[in-house]
């Protein structure tokens, strides 16, 4: 086993374990903290793939900003077992169906991924994840989807302000 392989298995195990803990934890604050661990291990995978920029942006955006807001809301709501409303069986059934559908989609996606069987992952090589190459590609080849998604973000921001202003 090379150092990279050891790291890969460690990070994968960590990601899966903490992802499970997100679901299993009784306390929502613990779930959020485990989710942050998931983001960290995924960022570790990005670094193994030599995509340092994506790794660090993943941390800044998800672990640094979005999860802080999650934590914010959950801390203010003060959730605990007593106050959690008991949902009726219809809602539970709907939850099971929705989750099952997602599972089938993911399984079919896994099954159709035939082209990646027997091929090795390129570890610590390739330079598409480095900031210079990524920037060049984003602003040349993918400039239209890139700009469109920024317009989407802007509209979401304006929407949030409008909803916040409504008294």
């Amino acid at each position, binding site marked *: *086993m*090379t*150092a990279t392989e050891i790291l890969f298995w460690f990070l994968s195990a960590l990601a899966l374990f903490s992802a499970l803990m997100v679901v299993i934890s009784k*306390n929502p*604050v613990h779930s959020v*903290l485990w989710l*942050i661990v998931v983001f960290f291990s995924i960022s570790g995978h990005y670094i193994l793939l030599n995509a*340092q*920029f994506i790794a*660090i*942006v993943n*941390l*800044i955006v998800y*672990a*640094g*900003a979005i999860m*802080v*807001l999650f*934590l*914010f809301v959950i*801390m*203010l709501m003060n959730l605990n077992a007593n106050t959690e409303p008991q949902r009726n069986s219809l809602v539970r059934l709907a939850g099971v169906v929705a989750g099952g559908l997602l599972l089938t989609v993911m399984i079919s996606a896994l099954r159709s991924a035939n082209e990646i069987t027997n091929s090795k992952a390129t570890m610590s090589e390739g330079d598409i994840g*480095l*900031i210079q190459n990524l920037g060049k590609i984003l602003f040349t080849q993918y400039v239209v989807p890139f700009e469109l998604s920024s317009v989407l973000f802007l509209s979401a921001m304006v929407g949030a302000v409008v909803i916040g202003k409504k008294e």
Partner: protein
Amino acid sequence: MIYLLTIDWLLLLEKLILIAVVVMASLVIAMYETYAERKIAAFMQDRIGPNRAGIFGILQPLADGMKLFFKEEIIPNSSNKILFVLGPSLAMLTAMMTCAVVPWSGDVNLFGRTISLQIADVNIGILYVFAVVSLGIYGVMIGGWASNNKYSLLAALRGASQVISYELAMGISLIALLMMTGSLSLKTIVEQQMQSHWNILYQPLGFLIFFVCALAECNRTPFDLSEAENELNMGYHQEYSSMKLGFYLFAEYVNMFVSSAIMATLFFGGYDIPFFNESAHADLGNWLALFGIICFMLKIGIFIFLFMWIRWTVPRFRYDQLMNLGWKKLIPLALANMLVTGAVILWLHK
């Protein structure tokens, strides 16, 4: 196992020693920052300040640390015990992690090896700093929530919203700088400044915005809303005692040291010796690196003094004033700075 032998063990050893030295140095500097803070405060308030432990009270930080270690350690019954301990540990960890990408000086030649005085020269250095800074708030938030105290929770939420708000302006003011340097590696940024002028000449407004945001990110007065003792009893660390409290207070001083180092690196030439052409005196060898460190530490010292000077002269903002300043003044200013910088760069490269 055979692959493990192919690792460059000397490089590993070198890096481990460097990490140990940098961590120890930032802890010692943070220790003496507390002493400096008390002395400067005393000077500004026409007092003498600590003068009992050692000559001029020079052993005061040691006495303070010892006192904190021997205090009774209280974990409140109603608190979340694991998170209660995790909070201060995270605050300390994130404070120390930032040092990893700061270039402390040029290369040193020891025993025939060229040693870079930087733990990791990653090509996204400044983004790494940014990521660690944005993670730093978890220590405060987790600690404040786990204490199970309303004042602590309120202070933690204040701290978090303050850091998130000021991060934006900080990031935008950095974009203007990065458009000029064209690199995110701190080492490259310093080397560029060594060849031409310091970035402060090109980005005075950007530096001003960055400095104000750094004050806010370090939770220093006038932005220490999460420790406003006259509104919140004591702030997010109200339930903490002993060295866990010490960790929170200490993390603030480590943060101050590291953010001073980052500001000196980005805007004031890092380890560049002022009015001295390093490339013409390459024969000085290791002395050059030593002078570099001394200059860098002097610049950091000036910034730390500035932080303290502001703390003991400017009163604390009200919370709405803080948010107004962040969102309605600093962010538009930083955006304007970015647009003007972009336009000038475009015009010069026409």
